[in-house]
C-alpha cells in the first residue's frame, strides 16, 4: 500500500472536533435503555452503556472520521455486579455501624489509585480512532504517589499543595496515555494551575464581599421583624449563594478543562479548547432546571447539547501527517475499576 493514495489528511489546517448526534434519536436509545434496565433489574446496564457510548463516540468526528467505543458488554456486566454488591453492602451497613463508614472511606481512599489506573486502562483500550486503540500505562506506583501521597500532604501544607496535586494528577493521566504506540505528553507546569486556583479564589472572595455589602445595605433597610418572613429573608441569602456556587463551579471546571486540553501534546500535534465560562454556566443552570422540571425526560437533550457545545470548542492543530500512527499490541482489560468508579461516582478523566 502506498500512502499517497490514502485519503488526504489535511496537515496544513486546523481540524475542529464536531458532534453530530441528534436529541430525538438519542432520546429513543435512552428511553429504551431505561426500560430494559428496569425490566432486567439493572443487568441491561452493561449493554445500555455500550450503546450509549458507541452512539456518542460514533458521532464525535475529527477530520470526518468518528471515534469508536469497543467495550464488550459482558466484561462491563461483571464489573457492574461487583460495584452494586459493594455499594449495597456499604449503604446498608453504614446506617447501623457508623464506624464502618470510616473504615470504608479509608479503604476507598487507599484503592483510588488502583481504580483510576484500571478505569483509564479499560476506557483507553476500548476507545479507537481510525481503528487504532488508545493505551494507558498501568503505572500504579506513580498513581499511589499522586492520589495518596500528595493528598496526605494537604493538611500539613494548609491546602497550598492542592493546585500542585491537581497538576500532578492531570499530568499523570496524560503522560501515561498513548494513541497506539505514540505517547501523549503534558506540556504545562504547576504554575498555570496555581494561577488558575488563585484567580478562582480571588473571584470567589470578591463575590462574597460584594454580596455581603449588598446584603448589609438591604438588611438595615428592611428591618427584619421577628415573626414575619423569616423564609423570605433566608431565600434572599440562599439564592445568591447558590448562584455564586454554580458560577464558581462552572468557572473552575471550564478553565481547568481548557488548561488541560491546551497542554496536551501528541508528538507535534496539539489541541485547543476554548470553552466559555458564561456559556458553560448557562448550560449547567438551564440543564438542571430543564431536567428537574421534566422529571428527567430532558436528560437526553441536556447531554446532547452539552456534548455538542464542548466538542464544537475543541480543535486539533496537526503538526504533520495523521496517517502514520502505529497500533500497539495489548491485552484485554476487565471493567471492575471502571464500574465501581461509576457507581461510587468517582470522577476520572482529563
Amino acid at each position: 500500500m502506498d500512502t499517497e493514495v490514502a485519503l488526504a489528511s489535511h496537515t496544513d489546517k486546523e481540524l475542529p472536533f464536531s458532534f453530530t448526534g441528534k436529541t430525538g434519536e438519542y432520546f429513543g436509545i435512552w428511553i429504551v435503555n431505561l426500560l430494559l434496565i428496569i425490566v432486567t433489574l439493572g443487568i441491561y446496564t452493561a449493554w445500555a452503556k455500550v450503546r450509549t457510548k458507541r452512539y456518542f463516540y460514533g458521532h464525535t468526528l475529527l477530520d470526518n472520521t468518528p471515534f469508536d467505543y469497543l467495550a464488550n458488554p459482558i466484561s462491563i456486566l461483571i464489573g457492574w455486579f461487583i460495584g452494586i454488591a459493594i455499594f449495597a453492602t456499604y449503604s446498608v451497613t453504614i446506617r447501623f455501624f457508623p464506624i464502618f463508614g470510616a473504615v470504608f472511606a479509608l479503604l476507598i481512599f487507599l484503592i483510588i489509585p488502583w481504580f483510576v489506573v484500571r478505569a483509564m486502562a479499560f476506557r483507553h483500550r476500548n476507545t479507537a480512532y481510525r481503528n487504532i486503540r488508545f493505551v494507558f500505562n498501568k503505572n500504579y506506583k506513580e498513581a499511589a504517589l499522586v492520589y495518596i501521597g500528595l493528598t496526605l500532604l494537604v493538611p500539613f501544607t494548609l491546602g497550598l499543595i492542592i493546585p500542585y496535586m491537581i497538576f500532578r494528577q492531570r499530568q499523570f493521566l496524560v503522560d501515561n496515555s498513548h494513541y497506539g504506540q505514540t505517547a501523549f505528553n503534558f506540556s504545562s507546569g504547576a504554575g498555570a494551575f496555581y494561577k488558575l486556583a488563585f484567580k478562582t479564589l480571588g473571584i470567589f472572595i470578591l463575590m462574597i464581599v460584594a454580596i455581603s455589602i449588598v446584603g448589609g445595605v438591604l438588611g438595615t433597610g428592611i428591618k427584619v421583624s421577628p415573626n414575619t418572613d423569616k423564609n423570605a429573608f433566608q431565600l434572599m441569602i440562599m439564592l445568591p449563594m447558590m448562584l455564586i456556587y454554580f458560577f464558581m463551579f462552572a468557572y473552575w471546571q471550564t478553565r481547568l478543562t481548557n488548561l488541560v486540553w491546551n497542554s496536551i501534546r501528541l508528538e507535534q500535534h496539539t489541541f485547543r479548547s476554548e470553552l466559555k465560562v458564561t456559556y458553560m454556566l448557562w448550560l449547567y443552570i438551564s440543564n438542571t432546571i430543564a431536567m428537574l422540571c421534566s422529571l428527567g425526560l430532558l436528560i437526553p437533550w441536556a447531554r446532547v447539547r452539552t456534548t455538542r457545545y464542548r466538542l464544537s470548542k475543541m480543535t486539533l492543530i496537526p503538526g504533520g501527517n495523521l496517517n502514520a500512527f502505529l497500533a500497539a499490541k495489548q491485552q484485554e482489560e476487565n471493567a471492575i475499576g471502571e464500574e465501581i468508579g461509576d457507581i461510587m461516582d468517582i470522577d476520572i478523566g482529563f
Partner: protein
Amino acid sequence: MAFKTFTAVYYDGITSGRWPVEIQFNDTHLTITGNGISRRVPLADVRIEPQIGHLRGQIRFADGAMCEVEDGKALMRAVPAEHQQTTLSFIHRLENKLHYIAIALLLSIIIIWGLIEFGVPYAARSIADHIPLSMEQSMGEQVLNGMDKVFLEPSDLPAARVSQLQAEFAKFIHNNGGSYHYRILFRKSEKIGANAFALPSGIIVFTDDMVKLAKDDRELVAVLAHEMGHVEEHHTLRHVLQDSLAVIVLVMITGDVHSASSLVASIPTLLIQAKFSRQFEDHADAYAAQALQKQGLSQHWLGTILARLEENHRNQQSLPNFLSSHPSTPERLQHLRALKLHAD
C-alpha cells in the same frame, strides 16, 4: 446473483491510514477492492457491528481490519439476516419507532413507581423479618453508642421521677404483651430538644425535654406506645433498608447521571425517603391508638402531646409536607380520629 456495492473507508488496524475502497456483497461473501487492496472474505468470518441510530456502519475482520460505510442502515439492509445480531437489531428497531418509545416511556414510569411503592417496601420487610435478634441487638447498641457520643448526655431528671415513669412504662409494656424485651432510657439533649425515638431491638430513648413537655403521664405512655409501634413493626430496620434500596434502584436507573446534574438524582431520593418516613409514622400512630385502647386509655393523649410537640418545634423549622419526615400534625390528628371511628 445480485451484488450490492458500497463505497467505504478501509482501516487496516496497523496504521492510522484511511483507504477509500469499494465493497461488494453477495449472499455468502464480501469483496473489497481499491488502492491495492483486494480481499474476499466469507460473510461468516466478519462481524457486522449492530446498528445504533444513524451511525456509520462497521464491518470488522478477524485480523483487526475494519471497513466503514457512510450509510449504516443501507449496509444492514444489504447483509443477510443470519449474519446480523438479531436481538440487538430488534432493540434498534424499538429505538426508532415512536409508538414503541411512547409505550416504553409509560411502562418505565409505571415500573419505577411500582418498584418504589410496592417492590422496595416488600423487599425491605422480607429482609427485616429475617434479621436475627442478636444482630438487631448489636445494631441497637452501636447506634445508641454513637448517639451518646455525639448529641446525648446523661439525664438530669430526679431519680424518683425516672423510677416512677419506668414503673408506669413497665406496666404498660407488660399488659401490651409485645415480642421484645424493652429498655427505656432517659437522656438530656439540647440539640434535639423534646423528642423520643426507637432503636432496633427495643431500645426507646426519651429526652428530658420530652418528659417535661408532658402535662400528664398518660401522654408519655402514648408516646411510648407510638415508639413501641416502631419497634414491633421493625420500622428502623425497614426504614433503613427501604431508603438504601430506593437509592440502589435510583442509582441503577440514573447510574450515568453525572456531576452537576446529580442534583437531579438526589431530589427524588429525598422525596421518596421523606414519603417512606411519613408512612412509618402513620403506622406507628395507628399501632399506638390500638395499644392504648386495649388498656382502656384514650388515644386523645397521643393527640394532645403531638399538638404540643408541634407547637414546641414550630419556632425551629417548618418544611412543606412533601419534604417533611413526619406527617403534618393536623393530618396525624385526623388519621387518629378516623381510626377511632373504625374502632367504635
